């Protein structure tokens, strides 16, 4: 998902007998749905895993602005431009809510920025694909934000208070994102032949990367088992992916567009769609830095950070100077 490669630390889930008193008390709180707050005792593994999960999520929101930012100046109408601008601004906000939530665990904003810019931290694979046409703005809102919602809604009920509260704010804002994307697709799909072809082309390019967003199958992973026990993950990757396919295929049919998967077929027995195999080699290559736009995305973030250095420093100096003046006047 927005945090696709989070490996919970530790070797499997401890039984109650293996836990010490702190750990048992901690697990009891989670099992009773009592939120864990920043200053509460928590196992080191929980802290470490959450730092990684929340910062990856934040980085994804921030890098996620770039593919859509690419079309702000070329939106087809002034209305579409203001909508896209608002959507991208929301994503910046999501990044900020999440960075703050991660900071409560004892990692600084600068540390997280450093991890992103050095390539050490991961962000969602989906943002390393190029946005070639205006229809990509439709496909991203509809599919990418749609997939993100699927994963973010349950996270509103996760065990860590600051993360859960950030997710509540984010979820309130996401539904606008998905709807504006679907609306773009709907207008194009009902437009001229060329417009319809543009919408189909965008669906062709974004469908498989959207399915990869949920991450590789993790039903048997020990890391996931730990995250389930800590209630910082509520559904398996395959479960969410299936839900996404079942929800999205009828929407594509409504649009009169073809989902680019010849194996896609309704399965009465499981009351869901069967779908084709995902190219996980591609996914791992993109995550490891070899996607079509990884260099460009990181380059843009590095440039923004470096170009802004003088500005960040000047504001600090200015604040100190003004504080000194104020003190002198008192």
């Amino acid at each position, binding site marked *: 998902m927005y945090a696709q490669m989070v490996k919970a630390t530790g070797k499997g889930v401890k039984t109650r007998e293996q836990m010490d008193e702190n750990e048992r008390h901690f697990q009891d709180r989670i099992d009773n749905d009592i939120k864990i707050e920043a*200053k*509460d005792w928590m196992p080191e593994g929980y802290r470490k895993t959450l730092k990684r999960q929340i910062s990856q999520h934040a980085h994804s929101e921030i890098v996620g602005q770039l593919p859509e930012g690419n079309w702000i100046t070329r939106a087809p109408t002034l209305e579409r431009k203001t909508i896209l601008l608002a959507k991208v601004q929301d994503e910046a906000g999501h990044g*900020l809510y999440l960075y703050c939530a991660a900071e409560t665990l004892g990692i600084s*904003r600068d540390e997280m920025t450093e991890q992103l810019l050095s390539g050490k931290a991961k962000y969602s694979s989906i943002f390393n694909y190029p946005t070639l046409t205006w229809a990509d703005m439709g496909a991203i809102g509809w599919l990418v934000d749609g997939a993100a919602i699927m994963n973010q809604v349950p996270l509103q009920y996760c065990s860590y208070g600051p993360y859960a509260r950030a997710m509540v704010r984010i979820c309130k804002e996401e539904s606008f994102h998905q709807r504006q994307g679907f609306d773009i697709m709907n207008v194009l799909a009902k437009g001229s032949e060329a417009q319809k072809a543009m919408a189909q082309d965008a669906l062709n390019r974004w469908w498989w990367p959207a399915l990869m967003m949920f991450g590789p199958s993790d039903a048997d992973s020990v890391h996931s088992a730990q995250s389930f026990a800590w209630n910082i993950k509520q559904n398996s990757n395959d479960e969410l992916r299936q839900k996404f396919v079942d929800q999205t295929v009828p929407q594509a049919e409504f649009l009169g567009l073809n989902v680019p998967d010849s194996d896609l077929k309704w399965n009465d027995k499981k009351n869901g769609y069967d779908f084709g195999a995902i190219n996980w080699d591609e996914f791992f290559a993109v995550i490891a830095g070899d996607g079509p736009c990884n260099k460009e995305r990181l380059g843009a973030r590095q440039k923004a950070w470096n170009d802004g250095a003088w500005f960040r420093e000047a504001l600090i100096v200015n604040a100190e100077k003004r504080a000194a003046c104020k003190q002198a006047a008192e």
Partner: protein
Amino acid sequence: MSQKNEWPLWEIFVRGQHGLAHRHVGSLHAADAEMALNNARDVYTRRNEGLSIWCVPAAAITASAPSEKGPLFEPSNSKVYRHPTFYDIPKEIGNM
């Protein structure tokens, strides 16, 4: 990337339009109070969520410690008579 130049952290409180008290909505980094206010407007009130914003330097907040939960809050647990439901009002009286 020098750690010491990181802008300080501010906690943000927003009062909505329905007369409720200011509520903590999150935090942000800013060089000074004026910038904190400007950023708070952009980050936390993009959809008309508030009519008033308070920015408080995070370092200025005194918080109760989780370890004091017992001594601080348990005494009120035993004082059930502080709640209206403690008292049986005769049926004949109706609502009170």
